[in-house]
């Protein structure tokens, strides 16, 4: 079977098309989606929060060093909140969910494919895409925006720990400048980025797992490809989304 990059893109497109068709026709399991969403949220909560915290702390730390040169320490919290909420929180949430839940989706579906469970489902005339794939994609699309907001909060808190806790800036000064450059639009845009990444990671993970071949190695390869492709496309689309959302087209 030939598999150049263009052919893979085509196959991915067909797979996403099949998922959309199943979704529109109503042949998919809503309860299944809620269950996947709650497992993903529970399993990714800790990784997302404990990585967002040191990230915010590092920005607080290095940002103080930059602003030190201009004795403009009071601006640190607005710099921190803009950078964390617009840029870092969606990417951290997406990368961690891709690593934790995306790879486990690929592993689950890959193991089902290897053990011919997916074939068994379709033999019983239950559409495996509507039953196994669409709920997983939907779960990602629900959970990543929520975790994005959470990561934003923890990132800012990590920055607060360094700026107020270690460097001794008064709490009032920090809070006064926190929302200075931030609007509701930024929060919405941040959650929207999370939604796009959710759909992206969900479809990539399910596609790779659904089409795994070649025994245990195949499952390992599917998991590996899922993580690499998801992280890569998250960063690429992050550039496009940032240019689109924050360059003044929508405000």
């Amino acid at each position: 079977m030939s598999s150049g990059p263009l052919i893979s893109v085509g196959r991915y497109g067909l797979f996403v098309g099949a998922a959309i068709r199943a979704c529109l026709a109503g042949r998919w399991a809503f309860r299944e989606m809620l269950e996947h969403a709650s497992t993903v949220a529970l399993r990714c909560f800790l990784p997302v929060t404990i990585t967002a915290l040191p990230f915010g702390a590092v920005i607080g730390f290095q940002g103080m060093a930059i602003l030190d040169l201009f004795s403009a320490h009071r601006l640190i919290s607005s710099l921190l909140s803009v950078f964390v909420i617009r840029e870092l929180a969606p990417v951290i949430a997406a990368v961690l969910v891709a690593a934790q839940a995306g790879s486990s989706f690929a592993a689950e579906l890959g193991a089902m494919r290897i053990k011919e469970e997916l074939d068994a489902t379709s033999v019983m005339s239950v559409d495996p895409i509507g039953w196994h794939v669409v709920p997983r994609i939907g779960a990602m699309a629900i959970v990543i925006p929520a975790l994005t907001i959470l990561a934003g909060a923890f990132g800012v808190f990590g920055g607060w720990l360094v700026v107020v806790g270690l460097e001794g800036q008064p709490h009032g000064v920090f809070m006064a400048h926190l929302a200075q450059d931030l609007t509701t639009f930024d929060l919405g845009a941040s959650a929207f980025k999370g939604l796009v990444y959710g759909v992206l990671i969900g479809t990539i993970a399910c596609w790779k797992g659904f089409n795994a071949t070649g025994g245990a190695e195949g499952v390992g390869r599917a998991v590996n490809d899922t993580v690499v492709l998801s992280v890569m496309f998250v960063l690429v689309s992050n550039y496009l989304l940032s240019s689109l959302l924050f360059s003044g087209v929508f405000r």
Partner: protein
Amino acid sequence: MITAFVRSVGRYGLFCWDCGVSAWRHGVRWDRVMGEASKLGVRSFGVLAVMALFVGTNLAIQGHAAFSALGAQSLVGMFVALAGVREVCPLLAGTMVAAKAGTEMTAQLAVMRTKEQIDALEVMAIDPRAELVVPPLLGIMIALPALTIISIAIALGSSVAVAVWQLGLEYGDYVDWLVSNITVFDLTAAMIKALVFAVVIATVSGWFGFFSERGPIGVGSATNKAVVVMCIVCITLNFFLTTVLYG
């Protein structure tokens, strides 16, 4: 849960110790180390180049958004230099190699465990750690600092392109702020970070693969756990390394 966590940290430590001991006892096969390093470097280069390209553009855009509000556009170059060289590029190269080479190593070892090839090596009195874990470990330690420097170059280059063509900043001004804020110490610190990340990536992925459960589900879950743990440990260590190196 806490005892289980402490126990696995202890097992991980013992695994690292065993790897060191077997490297000491059986010697290091440098031809295999260099082979792993070049394979890793070549395979990860493409993905890393694409990522570094877009990270550089993003840093420029967000720096511009943050600093143009203050009317201090020239600070964008400084922001990109400090954030890119000190923090983002080492972490980017680390997580990328973790996602690509680390998971590959875990999956490979887990498959060998499943097929009882590791047990076969032990039966033949060949130390599986010296054979399977030590060469990739040293290979990653060679390749990752190099990849970090390459990603820094690409990210800074793409940030210049975006700053000049998309954001309309002055070329000479931007490059001046960019270059004058990068010191030799910054680059050395980035490489030290990369070395630490390399040790973490190789030992964690080796550990999860080496002691994975058998069967396709075991392979999948070992890979899954390895990549999550590598990401978390690298990001957390990055904070401590920053505090130690720049504190």
